């Protein structure tokens, strides 16, 4: 209890969301799985239609008021996922999982803290994919899960 009280409000909010029904229901469905929280980071895997799982390391400072960042992550070796093991695919997949964007530290998505910068047009073009503090990290995970389970997903590179 003392540990919870000593936490920053943003960490407390993230841990509350990770223990809440929406996150646990997605985890029980096999859509995603919490690996670890080491504040301000959380590592969560998301499952793809071919059974592959992709780790993401989220940076969650000022959660949920500020959008998170997410970097493809090797959740077993605990290091950035080599570009050769990122997801591949047509169109939406190639654009979202682009290792050349911000040196591979980001997904090219409107719900991403860094990617939305300089893309004010996305606010009108992709309103359903913007960060939503009320839905928090589950919304981001849902968008990634949708991509990895779409017909355009083409498996792991390499």
């Amino acid at each position, binding site marked *: 209890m003392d540990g919870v009280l000593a936490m920053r409000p943003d960490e407390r909010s993230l841990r509350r969301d990770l223990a809440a029904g929406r996150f646990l229901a997605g985890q029980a469905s096999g859509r995603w799985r919490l690996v670890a929280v080491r504040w301000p980071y959380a590592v969560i895997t998301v499952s793809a239609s071919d059974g592959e799982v992709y780790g993401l390391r989220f940076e969650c400072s000022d959660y949920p008021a500020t959008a998170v960042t997410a970097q493809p992550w090797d959740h077993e070796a605990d290091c950035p996922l080599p570009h050769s093991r990122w997801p591949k695919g047509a169109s939406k997949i190639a654009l979202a999982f682009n290792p050349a964007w911000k040196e591979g530290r980001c997904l090219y998505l409107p719900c991403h803290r860094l990617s939305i910068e300089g893309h004010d047009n996305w606010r009108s*073009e992709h309103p359903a994919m913007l960060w939503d503090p009320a839905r928090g990290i589950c*919304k981001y995970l849902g968008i990634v899960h949708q991509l990895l389970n779409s017909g355009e997903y083409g498996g792991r590179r390499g």
Partner: protein
Amino acid sequence: MTKTSDIFLQGEAILDIEFVSFGEHPSVQEILIEAAKFRSSNGDGEYLVFVEDELEPLDAHGHLPKGKEGEPVRVHVHRCREIAVTVTFNGAITADPFAPGRTIESVKKAMAHALGLDPRDAAEHVLQLAGSTERPDADTHIGSLVSHGTCVLAFDLVPLKRVEG
């Protein structure tokens, strides 16, 4: 050690998916009492308990069935026995009734099939609440989206757009 039964609870006027623990084999009445605590408002009429994706509600005097391999049972509490769902896609409209405990994902699959989309094309589309930009999560029960005791829902089936530019 006391055994417990965990459920994922959704329902009318319940804003999110709630994770709730009971003693072993909770009764339908126990679930109704617990669900009332999560509702933002209560209405007149009888609330019914559905298991996810099941057509018929549980007997009001019965108990919750066990989950598969001890997994939490997904439960929905609503006054509507069914929701009249309309989906619009490229000018075509299809309508069908569904139990309130049906998920967005299962309703999308059923309606996409009715509209002639194959599963690969259906995977490139999502349900969006008509007149909004709101796209409920795949495991949201459709009854959670119906307010004020009505039993009607309208969606557009929209393509997942590429993010570029």
